[in-house]
């Protein structure tokens, strides 16, 4: 630890994947490790214990960030989060409950805890209760909303021709509201509803679809209102088709975030480590860019996108009302979701670098024989074996994801065919990791090879 005139910090500050865990829940001057708790449990407890003067929003952000980074052991984190659902305020308990769901652990809905305040929607078809989820236009539907008490309830409805929001009532002291009405959708149409309590969306969204003849309709539900949908996201994607490389990158803010910040994203496409294309896009709620260009066989392509929020308020320094910090967009390598945490209320520059997302892809030859037009049949078989052994060779740099992509590529290309492909897929199906084996077996099945039929099912089940 060093001191350079500013607060004490460690050499790893700023490294998201470093070993140092920032405590985001304030000062804990009187905090003591409970007797008998493991050190891992104590560290997890401390990281999510409410310190002096810490607001609900800071606690929620800490819960979301600490869970997201995955620096803690699963069981201590589950224990801590379950405790928060019982002891914390409804808002924090709600966030803890959501994290538990992501960890695959039950959220213990103790009566009176915040875990119950996540607004939810359930529907029943009163006209045909036993045939749920079947639906016919005109059926009477009961919608039951459950969430925080005494909240205004709104429903946003979208059909092919209309969209609008209406206020339908207020939840009672128990946080409930029930509404029964006939729902209509024209033949072949879909009507979707998103319900809200106050400013929070209730999950799931409910769609009423009818078949083209008016029958065969269904009620379809899709989850929305995830706390991580609230602010925005970033995404990079890349595809390689014979001789072409295509990319898509996007930064998207919700309207709430877009109120205070503008979007900027900068993407760079590299070919074998050298930049060949750079693009900058700006936008209001969304900034996205597609691009296409020629690909050179056997070259590696990588798309890197930097996602920025541009703070709006200020001249010398800027208001940062949602407390975004550098690298506040968390997630996987190619996608990230914004979590407002840890950022100061004011920032010296308008640009806040939220994340970089990266994807890569190798360009495979469209026709491995194009370079050798005069080959004999046996030589062709040798070339095919050699190409397959090269592109499907497991090296330390090639992970399962890469191997699976290549298997899918090879098995869908007509120029890769015959016994050589079957031989290579059989080899992978016998000697590779389970996910790669399963992909090889699917390829063998696609090739209608008996090995794939007999072994594929077993491998996929595994």
């Amino acid at each position: 630890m060093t001191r350079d005139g500013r607060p004490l910090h460690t050499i790893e500050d700023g490294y998201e994947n470093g070993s140092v865990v920032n405590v985001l829940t304030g000062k804990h001057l009187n905090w003591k490790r409970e007797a008998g708790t493991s050190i891992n449990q104590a560290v997890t407890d401390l990281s999510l214990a409410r310190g002096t003067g810490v607001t609900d929003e800071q606690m929620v952000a800490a819960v979301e960030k600490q869970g997201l980074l995955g620096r803690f052991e699963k069981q201590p984190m589950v224990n801590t989060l379950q405790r928060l659902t019982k002891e914390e305020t409804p808002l924090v308990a709600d966030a803890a409950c959501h994290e538990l769901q992501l960890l695959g652990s039950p959220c213990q809905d103790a009566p009176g805890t915040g875990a119950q305040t996540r607004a939810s929607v359930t529907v029943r078809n009163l006209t045909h209760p036993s045939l749920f989820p079947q639906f016919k236009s005109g059926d009477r539907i009961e919608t039951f909303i459950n969430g925080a008490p005494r909240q205004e309830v709104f429903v946003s409805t979208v059909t092919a021709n209309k969209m609008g929001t209406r206020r339908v009532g207020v939840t009672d002291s128990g946080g409930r509201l029930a509404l029964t009405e006939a729902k209509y959708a024209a033949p072949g149409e879909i009507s979707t509803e998103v319900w809200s309590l106050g400013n929070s969306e209730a999950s799931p969204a409910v769609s009423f679809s009818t078949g083209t003849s008016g029958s065969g309709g269904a009620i379809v539900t899709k989850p929305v209102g995830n706390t991580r949908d609230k602010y925005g996201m970033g995404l990079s994607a890349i595809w390689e088709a014979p001789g072409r490389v295509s990319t898509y990158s996007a930064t998207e803010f919700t309207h709430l975030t877009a109120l205070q910040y503008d979007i900027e994203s900068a993407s760079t496409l590299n070919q074998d480590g050298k930049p060949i294309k750079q693009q900058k896009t700006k936008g209001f709620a969304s900034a996205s860019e597609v691009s296409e260009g020629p690909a050179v066989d056997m070259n590696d392509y990588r798309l890197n996108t930097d996602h920025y929020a541009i703070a709006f308020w200020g001249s010398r320094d800027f208001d940062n009302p949602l407390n975004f910090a550098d690298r506040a967009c968390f997630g996987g390598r190619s996608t990230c979701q914004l979590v407002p945490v840890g950022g100061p209320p004011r920032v010296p520059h308008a640009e806040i670098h939220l994340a970089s997302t990266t994807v890569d892809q190798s360009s495979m030859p469209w026709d491995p024989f194009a370079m050798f037009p005069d080959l004999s049949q046996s030589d062709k078989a040798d070339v095919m074996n050699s190409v397959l052994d090269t592109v499907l060779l497991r090296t330390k740099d090639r992970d399962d994801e890469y191997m699976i992509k290549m298997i899918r590529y090879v098995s869908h290309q007509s120029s890769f065919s015959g016994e050589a492909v079957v031989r290579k897929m059989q080899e992978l199906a016998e000697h590779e990791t389970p996910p790669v084996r399963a992909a090889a077996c699917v390829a063998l099945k696609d090739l209608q090879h008996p090995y794939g039929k007999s072994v594929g099912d077993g491998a996929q089940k595994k």
Partner: protein
Amino acid sequence: MTDGKLLCCILLFSSVPATSQKVAEADRLKGTAIPKYLVYRHFLAMVDGFNGKAMASPGGGQYQFATAFNLAGWANPELDLMRNEAKSLTNELHQIDNKAQAARENYRKTARAQVLHDKPLPPPPPEIYRLQSLRNAVMVRHVVSLQSKLGPAKATRLENYLAYAFTPN
């Protein structure tokens, strides 16, 4: 090609206690936590983007937009479905975003005066939340529409394709 990934792994595993690696499973779950309707939203935005480029380029064929993802072997009627859904989603989101942009301009006008007098920013207008709900409803409606038009088997095939090729993480 994966040097960056490897470097990340080396940094991660060399600096984090071994026990922490046990949460890799949880981390993976979180990495894939991006809601499906947003995955579809971006997939369809990509379809619309490539379609716009193909239409604008001289000699661009009717299905040239699908070059990027034709490895999945989609037939023309299915590509038509995706393109129509993409176009309609883009238009509807545009309508809503225009309204939200107008609300934002009004908000910023009011808020600017507050900031100039060192007063805190006013709360977001409720209209912004309503428009966001509409936006989400539009996205979900197009997911349901595309899935129902494709039918269960092809919809599952599209989901698998999106998981592998569009948001691999």
